[in-house]
C-alpha cells in the first residue's frame, strides 16, 4: 500500500458552533498539499455533513482522514444511537433532526445524500445502540 498522511480529529458533540472546524482544517491541509479545488471541495463538504450529523445525533465522534496520492479516505466513527433503517436515512428530505437544529439551517434531510453525491464510494456500518461508522472515498 502506498504511503499516506493521516489526519485525526475528535468531534466535540456538545459544541454546535465549533462543528465544522475539523472539515475546515482538513480543507486547509489538503490545500497545502496541493490538491485541486474540486477535490478539496468534495472532501470538505462530505466531511462537514458527517461532522454535523455526529454533533446532531451522536454526541460527537472521531474523524480520520487518510490522504493518498490517488485518493482520500474519510472515516467517521461514533458511538451514537445507530441508524435503524439506512435506506430510509439515505432518502433526500428524510430527517430525524429536532426543531432547534432546523432553525440553524440543518435538518433538511440532505446530509447523507450530499455525502454520497460528493464522494466516489460511501459505506455505512451501523448498529442500533452501538454506533455508526461511515467510510467515504474521494478519488483524486
Amino acid at each position: 500500500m502506498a504511503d499516506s498522511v493521516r489526519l485525526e480529529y475528535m468531534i466535540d458533540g456538545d459544541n454546535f458552533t465549533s462543528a465544522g472546524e475539523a472539515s475546515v482544517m482538513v480543507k486547509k491541509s489538503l490545500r497545502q498539499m496541493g490538491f485541486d479545488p474540486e477535490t478539496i471541495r468534495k472532501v470538505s463538504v462530505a466531511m462537514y455533513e458527517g461532522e454535523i450529523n455526529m454533533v446532531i445525533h451522536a454526541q460527537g465522534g472521531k474523524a480520520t482522514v487518510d490522504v493518498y496520492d490517488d485518493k482520500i479516505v474519510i472515516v467517521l466513527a461514533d458511538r451514537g444511537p445507530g441508524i435503524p433503517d439506512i435506506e430510509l436515512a439515505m432518502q433526500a428530505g428524510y430527517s430525524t433532526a429536532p426543531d432547534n437544529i432546523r432553525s440553524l439551517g440543518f435538518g433538511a434531510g440532505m446530509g447523507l445524500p450530499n455525502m454520497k453525491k460528493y464522494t466516489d464510494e460511501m459505506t455505512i456500518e451501523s448498529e442500533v445502540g452501538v454506533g455508526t461508522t461511515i467510510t467515504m472515498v474521494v478519488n483524486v
Partner: protein
Amino acid sequence: MNVYKLSEALSLTPLAMPDVDREVTSCYTGDLLSWVMGRASADCVWVTIMTNINTVAVATLVDASMVIIAENAEIAPEVVERAREKGVNLYTSPLDAYALCAAISRYL
C-alpha cells in the same frame, strides 16, 4: 466581475471584506445549509437570510466568493468576526433575496 465591483454595483454594506478581488462567476440563493452545500457552485455569490455561525463554515466549504445577507437579517458580531478570520467576504443589503438575485443577474 469581482466582489468589490459587484458590492458597489448593488450598494451593499460591507461587514467583512478580506478578499474583495475574488471573481464571482455564479449566484445561488437558499437558507437550508445542506441544500446550499449540495448545490452552490464554487466562486458563487450566495444570497441568504441564514446568519448563524454555520453560515460562515458553509461559505468556506463551498468556496463561495461572497455572501450577501438579504433583508438586513440580524447577524451577531462573532459571526462577522468568524467571517474575517476565515476569509469570507460578507455583506448585507436591505433588499430581499429575489430583488438581489434579479439585480445580480444583470452583472454576471
